[in-house]
């Protein structure tokens, strides 16, 4: 395994009741790169993503086996503080989901829980995170407004800022642009590319053009199994597996 891997997944299985959603997935995810997970709907790409910050187990009767090692910690080891794991590994959901509070409070939600700093520090954190996602100038005059009043594109950038505010080391994106207009989608894409200099990013997408634009590495999944993974250019130009080839051909039409 290469030295720059940030997340190492070994023999990961996920079950809902008797249905097996992930089958023996083993892969390393590189530090400070963008890794895209591609595959047809229902292939388990979102499930894999949610296993990386232990959100998958929230579903009723979900069961996870295997190892996910982030940094030096097996996040599924006995006695691990789940909330600390989730703080280290942020997830930006498919559907922009503001919390029922003001714009400011949305970003401050995480830091407040962890008591991260004084009031002044909190204001600075909120401002810095909103600036990182390019939302500050649009909302600085109405930080007390309900977050639900922002446009969908703004809401998604707010969600990203909220995720950044707890100072994670990994950012997981679950089809972050699928409910956005092309312009907003582009802004999120640009943000992801900029963020990879400080964060390890994993992006689930069904949009191969997007994966090509932003990803350094690609995982291709099918039916709960990891079929193939590698550098993005190599995967798109000369996939090894016939299944990958077929999927990329189909989607590119």
């Amino acid at each position, binding site marked *: 395994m290469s030295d720059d891997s940030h997340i190492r997944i070994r023999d990961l299985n996920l079950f809902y009741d008797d249905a097996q959603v992930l089958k023996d997935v083993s892969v390393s995810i590189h530090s400070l790169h963008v890794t895209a997970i591609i595959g047809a709907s229902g292939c388990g790409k979102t499930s894999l993503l949610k296993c990386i*910050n232990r*959100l998958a187990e*929230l579903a*009723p009767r979900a069961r996870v086996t295997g190892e996910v090692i982030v940094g030096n910690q097996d996040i599924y080891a006995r006695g691990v503080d789940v*909330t*600390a*794991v*989730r*703080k280290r590994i*942020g*997830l930006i*959901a498919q*559907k922009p*989901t*503001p*919390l*029922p*509070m*003001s714009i400011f409070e949305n970003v401050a*939600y*995480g830091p407040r*829980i*962890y008591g991260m700093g004084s009031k002044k520090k909190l204001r600075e954190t909120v401002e810095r995170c909103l600036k990182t996602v390019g939302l500050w100038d649009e909302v600085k005059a109405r930080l007390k407004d*309900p*977050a*639900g009043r922002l446009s969908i594109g703004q809401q998604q950038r707010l*969600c990203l800022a*909220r*995720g950044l505010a*707890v100072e994670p080391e990994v950012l997981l994106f679950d089809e972050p642009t699928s409910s956005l207009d092309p312009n907003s989608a582009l802004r999120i894409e640009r943000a992801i590319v900029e963020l990879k200099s400080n964060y390890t990013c994993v992006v689930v997408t069904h949009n191969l053009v997007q994966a090509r634009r932003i990803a350094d590495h690609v995982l291709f999944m099918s039916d709960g199994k990891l079929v193939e993974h590698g550098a993005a250019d190599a995967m798109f130009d000369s996939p090894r597996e016939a299944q990958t080839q077929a999927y990329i051909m189909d989607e590119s039409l």
Partner: protein
Amino acid sequence: MTRRKLLDRLLKVTSAASMGVVVAALAAILWTIISKGAKSLNWSLITQVPKGDFYTGGGGGIANAILGSIYLGIGATLLALAIGLPTVLYLRTYADRSRFASVVRGLLDVLWGVPSIVFGAFGFTLMIYLGMRASLLAGIITVAMFELPIMIRAMDLVMRMVPHELDEVSYGLGATRCETAIKVIARQAIPGIVTGALLAFGRGIGDAASVLFTAGFTDRIPESLTQPAATLPLAIFFQMGTPFKEVQDRAYGAALVLVMIVLVTSVASRVLSARLGRYVV
């Protein structure tokens, strides 16, 4: 006219007629109370306690019952809220989608259908067992038991509509279940919490049977939880039972006061819900 159009017309007519019956009944009730009660409603009725010969047509007012009812209604609603809110938060956050939750909901529905006189009888038994006398406190506990299933059902309904994406966002940021319940779920459901609490208050303050044996009745304004308390429903009942017309009229005056309290509560609930619901997504 075709058969389908005829049926359509028939449904429209019957629906409209039914609505007419409801509106007419409401108007008739309000008209009766206002026309009979308004003339006996004056300043001394709502500020004075009954004088010695009040129930035979003498002077005084129903301040004892008004204040007794308000104390009792507020006390019972706060007590029910203190038990009900954690219950619905538990059902929504910890026991979410579990078998246990559906059993609890089923039992609460049964409790919801129990007549208030049964709560009154149970409260009476409990009171005797604990060696208490009929008092404001015993009334508050009994009415709170009666209000609890009403309140929980109303709040639970709204809690269950809170989207699960919100939980996931909160957990994803490293929040615990408790933090999620209080800071996110309760916030999103706050209009429902307010409505549930005030609905229960309205039902509790208007109920006679649950306070009949437990709160007692007195001409004095209660000064502590251990003293008996008069209530408006019982004041209406006692005055209506006299053979004197002016006393009966004052019963309608008391009914008018009760209706106004419930009306103010329900308007306040709407205004408050709208204000507090500003941040709901």
